[in-house]
């Protein structure tokens, strides 16, 4: 009788540990996504500034700038899902990249102090996003491993935990953009 009691206690203990570790991993994914979100927001906050600066010099690029502004208003809507956030983040990055390329055609814009400062801030934000994204992916790997490996997978199944998606790096990001070249 005592032995059975002991076994039950041990099993109970193991279950609690498994449960807690899964919850911890799940929360870590959530926190990591929150830090990606904070960094993405920072980038969206830069957009009005970028638009107003570029507008003054690059008069023919209205369409691109309008698109960018639209993206921002979509992204800051609190009701969008995480997947949408990730997708919009990718698109915004691409659009901002386009603007930096466009800037090459406007020497006055490229030389303006304001624009150079904005570029620096943008570079830093991109690095912050990349850092947060990497942390998020590490947390997702941790979590996914736990819910697929025995024995935590049994528990994860009971708790209804599902595999989380990675925040993939864009091709451009993988190539380690040499942003230094942007400063002529």
């Amino acid at each position: 009788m005592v032995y059975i009691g002991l076994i039950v206690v041990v099993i109970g203990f193991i279950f609690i540990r498994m449960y807690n570790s899964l919850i911890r991993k799940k929360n870590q994914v959530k926190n990591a996504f929150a830090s990606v979100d904070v960094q993405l927001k920072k980038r969206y906050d830069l957009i009005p500034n970028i638009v107003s600066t570029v507008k003054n010099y690059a008069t023919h690029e209205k369409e691109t700038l309008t698109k960018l502004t639209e993206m921002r208003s979509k992204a800051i809507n609190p009701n969008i899902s995480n997947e949408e956030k990730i997708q919009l983040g990718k698109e915004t990055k691409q659009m901002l990249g386009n603007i930096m390329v466009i800037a090459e055609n406007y020497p006055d814009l490229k030389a303006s102090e304001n624009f150079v400062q904005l570029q620096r801030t943008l570079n830093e934000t991109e690095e912050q996003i990349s850092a947060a994204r990497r942390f998020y992916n590490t947390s997702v790997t941790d979590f996914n491993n736990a819910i697929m490996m025995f024995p935590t997978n049994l528990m994860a199944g009971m708790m209804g935990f599902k595999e989380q998606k990675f925040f993939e790096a864009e091709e451009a990001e993988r190539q380690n953009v040499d942003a230094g070249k942007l400063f002529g």
Partner: protein
Amino acid sequence: MKTLQEFENYYNSSLLPDIEPLEKERIKVKNRLLIVLTIIAVLGIGLFMLTKDNRAISIPVFIGLVMYSRIMKGYSLNFKDQVINKIIYFINSNLSYRKSSYISRMEFENSELFHSFNRYKGDDYVEGNIVDDEYLKRTGKTRSIHIEFSELNVLEDNDPWKINRTITVFKGLFFVADFNKNFKGYTKVVPDYKLNLFQGHNRVTLEDPEFEKYFQVYGDDQVEARFILSTSLMKRITDFRKKSGRKIYIAFKHNKIYIAIRYSENLFEPKVFETLYDFEIMKDYFEDLELALGIVGDLNLHLKIWADD
């Protein structure tokens, strides 16, 4: 940075003619040392024969050590002025060299890389600004970062396990420079031991498998550690580790980067029994200095494309 070929040309054209008096001094010092060595040997053997006691030898050995350091001191200082100083100036004329100074104890403690020591000394201090040549060429504007490094020898006299009388906490080159990104917390990169206990910070597991093979990262902010250790910096640190072939410790704090490179030997010291006319020996001094000064380029520290304060 200068290439080895450039250094060889410099050595042949400028350094070699200048070190002739020093070479003469070296021969004199060498001869004096040989005489001292002979006397000590004779004295030691004589004393041992007389007393039949091993301990008797310690007296002439002690005298010998005192004489050795007295004879070497003057030569060593001259050597550093005339050889090391010139090599540094040749590599980068913006740098200044102070042979008897070293990185401040405060700076060393700031890095939080090594703890519990009671003796702190060093020499061969180099300091100055490294200008980004490529940026200067492209924009006509000057951009530079401040660096300093020196040799350090940090010891602890009280071994808690009482195995040795003194423990070497750190010996080698200690390098400090401005870092090109702004950050608030603390992050450190230490060699990967199977058992790294008591690091006092959270483990940060990074994605680069080669980097993770050599190092372990600890820090107080997971995202910030990744912001500092970008994919390209991890690669550059791994390459630097492979190039140097030494144990490397790196800390990031207060917008500075601290790099400790372990050496077992003393650096930038004269070799009195070998001629100064041998380029191979000069090459070693040059390469040790190049390794330290090359850190800026190797880790791309002068690339400042991020926001200012």
